[in-house]
């Protein structure tokens, strides 16, 4: 192996071990920022020693021991007199003196829990959503600041600042490093799932042919979701989110046309849907359903996605079921957007007149005033009912609201199609 090969192999091991390493250290030193620094210190030592000694059999345990030693060094050098830190120092020294086999066993037992603690801490509601995303991608995803910045099309300095401030906020607010219990768990879990899904959508919205980090965001979100599913297997919403992401990801290659134009789900070539991901998504959905209980929003959205995934052709879609699912979703998290989607499903299931009745009720809602999909949907339903003049007006209104060139062109084409043939 060349020096570069070894270096890359070490980097790969570190990427694999990093999150658990930081998590274990964070539990010990009770500070996520310090834990990350110690992990970096351990990597530096590994890069010095492993090219000579070879990569150890248990690299995770090796890195943890190296990080602990660095922690003790730091505390000694800082000559901290604060009692808490002295105690901590003594604890660390006592642990370091323990026999190595015990260290391995102890690590294995706690790692799952520590990783979960790290997820909940990085997604803590005291942080802004942007901070949670950046911190999660850094600490759990192992992405560099540059990769995160490119993923979100932001300057590197902005992301770096977000991460620094996030760590400082967690320290200042003395956020405990723990998995929430009881009633708090559901709400805090919602925050974790929200971060993961936001990362996924950021990657999903990317178009083909641009920088490679963007599809990586989808992969990263999926990976975090899958890990969370194993760490918290009794939480149906976790499996619901994983199911939703697997099924959505199955459409990644079908959603953009040759000219970079977005292709609506109903128009996609289903031969390009990844059936392996669909199978995984449906399996995750089964896990969620098997846990029972009233369905949460992610589970409902996953069920809707599954309805589409199961239909071999658009014409085979079970629209009645989708309409019912949107109705259930509306009861859980009511919003005009959910209502609009329900109207579309009702129109497909019961005919355009039924859908139009629902859409007309929505037109009054101030929240949907600038929402370009509303006139687009209304236009489509009017067109199907043969009310062409009204349809044309709606398509033109939708085109004016659209800020996306390919979409605007599509809407204007539809407006043109409403003109009487000469």
């Amino acid at each position, binding site marked *: 192996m060349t020096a570069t090969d070894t270096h890359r192999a070490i980097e790969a091991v570190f990427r694999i071990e990093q999150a658990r390493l930081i998590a274990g250290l964070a539990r010990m030193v009770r500070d996520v920022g310090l834990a990350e620094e110690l992990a970096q210190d351990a990597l530096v030592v590994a890069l010095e020693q492993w090219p000579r000694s070879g990569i150890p059999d248990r690299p995770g345990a090796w890195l943890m021991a190296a990080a602990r030693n660095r922690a003790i060094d730091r505390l000694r050098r800082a000559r901290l007199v604060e009692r808490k830190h002295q105690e901590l120092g003594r604890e660390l020294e006592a642990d370091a003196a323990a026999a190595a086999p015990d260290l391995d066993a102890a690590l294995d037992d706690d790692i799952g829990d520590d990783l979960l603690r790290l997820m909940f801490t990085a997604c803590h509601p005291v942080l802004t959503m942007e901070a949670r995303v950046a911190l999660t991608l850094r600490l759990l995803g192992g992405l560099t600041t540059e990769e995160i910045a490119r993923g979100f099309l932001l300057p590197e300095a902005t992301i770096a600042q977000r991460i620094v401030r996030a760590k400082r906020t967690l320290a200042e607010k003395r956020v405990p490093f723990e998995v929430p219990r009881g009633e708090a768990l559901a709400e805090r879990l919602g925050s974790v799932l929200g971060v993961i899904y936001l990362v996924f959508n950021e990657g999903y919205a990317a178009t083909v042919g*641009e*920088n490679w980090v963007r599809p990586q965001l989808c992969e990263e979100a999926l990976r975090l979701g899958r890990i969370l599913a194993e760490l918290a297997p009794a939480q149906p919403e976790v499996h619901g989110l994983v199911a939703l992401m697997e099924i959505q990801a199955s459409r990644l290659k079908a959603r953009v046309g040759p000219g970079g134009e977005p292709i609506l789900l109903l128009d996609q070539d289903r031969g390009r849907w990844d059936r392996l991901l669909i199978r995984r998504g449906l399996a995750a959905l089964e896990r969620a359903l098997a846990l029972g209980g009233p369905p949460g929003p992610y589970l409902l959205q996953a069920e809707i*996605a599954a309805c589409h995934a199961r239909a071999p052709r658009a014409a085979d879609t079970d629209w009645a079921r989708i309409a019912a699912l949107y109705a259930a979703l509306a009861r859980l998290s009511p919003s005009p957007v959910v209502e609009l*989607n329900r109207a579309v499903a009702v129109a497909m299931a019961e005919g355009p007149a039924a859908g139009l009745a629902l859409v007309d009720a929505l037109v009054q809602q101030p929240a949907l005033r600038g929402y370009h999909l509303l006139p687009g949907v209304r236009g489509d339903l009017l067109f199907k009912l043969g009310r062409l003049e009204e349809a044309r007006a709606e398509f033109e209104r939708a085109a004016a609201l659209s800020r996306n060139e390919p979409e605007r062109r599509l809407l204007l084409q539809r407006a043109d199609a409403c003109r009487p043939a000469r």
Partner: protein
Amino acid sequence: MRILGMLKADADTEAGKPPSKDLIERMGAFIEEVTKAGVIVATDGLHPSSRGKRVRLADGKFTVIDGPFTESKELVASYALFQVKTMDEAVHWTKRFLEVLGRGECELRPIFEAEHFSPEVLTPAERAREEATRRAMKRDAEPPPTRR
């Protein structure tokens, strides 16, 4: 990126020799660990080549041959489909897998995914257009999911 890992067959796998209880246990623990890492998309074992067939087309003529096939070194005994950031990660997990087996050889091949093979640098105009499309799709993708 996706990588297909293929474990090469040997005399034991070709003989359909069942694994020891100890191996089953250790492999189970390993599969659990690698699943918890979220890097395996699919994995399966293959029956020995005695249960397999080969189909060939040459000079306009089909030939179908029943196994077993003699060159066991070139046969596949099992596969794993990885979803990882780099080939090095797949190599690392494969080493851990082989450690459980005690010995063996795996071949790793990246799966062809066109988008990932052209990391282009965008011109400012392309970037602006891409950003506009991205924002629009993101708007439409916000929960609840749209029809895209």
